């Protein structure tokens, strides 16, 4: 085969694989959206689910998913950013950092169901936190924290050396250089990465089945006291998230419209994750423009 034919064959193969993958993704997305979008309404998004009657909504589940995401970020952002700064600026490269990096890789690629069972054994039972949002957030931390470390480390490493040197040469300490020069430059990348990572947290189900639980208590959305058991803001109550809800009604839903509810909820989930992705891109571009263009 001449080099030219080889080139042509390779190009055709690569293009067909790409087309296949794009078609598969578009088909999948289209399928989920088309099947579910008709079921989405304001009522569906805000009302509580029904066990045996038709017409239930996903309000509490949607709220739980968002609240769980916030709780997870409250835990992982400070720790992850701190560790990322340490890894990129302070740790001497060597066995220790290699070891941490290995742990980070392993943790973030752990099967979710294993993390869920680990959460059940350690967080729920051993620490006695029970099925709760907080247990769920800790389980999600297992995936999210390594990601945050990696995102921050890479963002900080991506800051041009010239910027860092300019600050150090002015006599600023290492810490001030990090906080006033490097962080502002790295921040857009960190935020974009965080939003993308949030998509995974939002869609996670397996790790939450046995940690955040599969039920929600009757929530009173007018009760904002975080210590009250019926308050939606109580982090120590069990909470079924949207992804878990989809799994549950698909496998054991009793309501006559269970299939439509599952389809509608799946569409909502996909839309929210897409929204995260688009926000991340838009935000990244916006910050880039803001940082580089002259006003």
């Amino acid at each position, binding site marked *: 085969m001449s080099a030219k034919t080889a080139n042509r064959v390779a190009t055709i193969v690569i293009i067909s694989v790409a087309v296949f993958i794009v078609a598969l993704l578009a088909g999948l997305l289209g399928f989920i959206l088309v099947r579910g979008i008709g079921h989405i309404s304001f009522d569906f998004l805000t009302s509580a689910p029904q066990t045996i009657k038709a017409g239930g909504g996903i309000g509490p589940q949607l709220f739980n998913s968002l609240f769980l995401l916030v709780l997870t970020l409250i835990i992982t952002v400070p720790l992850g950013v701190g560790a990322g700064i340490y890894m990129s600026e302070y740790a001497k490269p060597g066995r220790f950092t290699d070891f941490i990096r290995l742990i980070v890789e392993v943790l973030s690629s752990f099967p979710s169901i294993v993390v869920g069972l680990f959460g059940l054994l350690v967080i729920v039972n051993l620490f006695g936190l029970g099925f709760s949002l907080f247990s769920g957030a800790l389980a999600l931390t297992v995936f999210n924290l390594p990601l945050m470390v990696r995102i921050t480390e890479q963002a900080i490493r991506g800051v041009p050396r*010239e910027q860092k040197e*300019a600050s150090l040469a002015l*006599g600023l300490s290492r810490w001030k250089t990090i906080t*006033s020069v490097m962080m502002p430059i790295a921040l857009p990348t960190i935020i974009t990465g965080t939003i993308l990572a949030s998509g995974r947290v939002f869609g996670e189900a397996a790790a939450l089945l046995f940690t955040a639980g599969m039920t929600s208590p009757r929530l009173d959305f007018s009760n904002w006291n975080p210590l009250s058991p019926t308050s939606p803001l109580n982090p120590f109550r069990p909470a079924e998230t949207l992804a878990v809800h989809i799994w549950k009604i698909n496998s054991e839903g009793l309501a006559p419209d269970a299939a439509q509810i599952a389809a509608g909820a799946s569409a909502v989930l996909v839309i929210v994750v897409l929204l995260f992705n688009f926000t991340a891109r838009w935000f990244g571009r916006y910050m880039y423009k803001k940082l580089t*263009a002259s*006003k």
Partner: protein
Amino acid sequence: MTTKFEVNELQLHYGEFHALKQISLSIPERSVNALIGPSGCGKSTFLRTLNRMNDMISSVRVDGEIKLSGTNIYDTGMDVEELRKRVGMVFQQPNPFPKSIYENVAFGPRLHRKPGRKELDEIVEKSLRGASLWDEVKDDLHKSALGLSGGQQQRLCIARALAVNPEVLLMDESTSALDPISTLKIEELIQELKKDYTIVMVTHNMHQAARVSDYTTFFLNGEVIESSPTEKLFSTPVDHRTEQYITGRFG
């Protein structure tokens, strides 16, 4: 004339690599000192020993001493941040922060000692004037520094260094990325600055060294071959390698 830097038997290793060998040199106060030599001979390395920027690289080992107004800057008790305030640096590529012109100049003083608004305004104006940039930017102080031309950005970097009130300015090929007119402006500026500051500059341009400097030091393979008043070094070099280099026969 008083001596600003007194370098005694300075040695620098990057790991196993011996980059600076037995350097002894004195740099007089309020003068322009040019460092010349072929690529890789250690000019930047030497320049960066003067404000200890080499400390950033973990493999670096420095022996010998460099006295700044009498105190060895490699003494264990030396406050490196204080040293860098006294010895400012301008880099090869203009590297303003992605902030406004004002914020760039105010950056150092603000983080060092939090002056009031009025004092800060004064520092910014004085530094921009000192860098011959004030007239060009006085109406645009709050615009992004990245919108300036390369030459203006480089003068902004000089202003940013002046704002922390240094005694010395180190310049590492600071005009090599600029057009001839911007280069000329900075050369004129250097003549102004030497009234108040000691300037040490690396340059690849022999004409520039001859035009602006009072003293020239010729480096080769990590050693100082010759260091004398610029006029003398260019008219009657003592070492034949210096002569070969300045007449363009190698390097």
